[in-house]
């Protein structure tokens, strides 16, 4: 069980059906040609779905 009760599962990777703890990422935003931030809290406030798409490194294939 998670002792800190933050829902983070204390280091265990998230499982399906779990609430994702809030996170913020620094971003490059091609649509604006500028840097920005992305946060799950913003997405939830705007009632938007999120698809997180991880990949090993820039300059590699999809």
């Amino acid at each position, binding site marked *: 069980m998670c002792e800190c009760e933050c829902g983070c599962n204390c280091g265990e990777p998230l499982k399906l059906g779990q609430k994702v703890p809030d996170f913020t990422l620094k*971003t490059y935003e*091609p649509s604006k040609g500028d840097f920005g931030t992305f946060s799950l809290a913003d997405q*939830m406030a705007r009632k*938007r779905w999120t698809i997180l798409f*991880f990949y*090993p*490194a*820039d300059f590699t294939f*999809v």
Partner: protein
Amino acid sequence: MGCDVVTVSTDTKHTHLAWREHEKDLHRVAYPMGSDGTGALSRMFGVYEDETGLAFRGTFIINPEGVLLGIEVNFDNVGRNIDELMRKFKASLYLSRKTSEACPSKWKDEGDKTLTPGAKLVGKVHEALND
């Protein structure tokens, strides 16, 4: 569609900019490119590889309530199929409104045949999909 894609790697936002500007295949890319320099987010989703400091090819669907509804993780040498990702996202979106239904493997879009799990469906999936 009420959905935002954000890509994530352990590169910096500056490298993201350089890659986006130099790779011709990325010139139409409009989604934000996130930087997980510490690997904290990659670890949270179980896709961080300690040996390399890189993330595996993981895709995660999160609904507007912040609940994790989809996980797909490939090793770093297998690419992902965007059609299948969009199928899973559309199914999740549809099922958020039609909570008693289920989308079978051949479901592609609204209007396609769905299943309604329950006692009547037990042993009758073939009939339900083919009648």
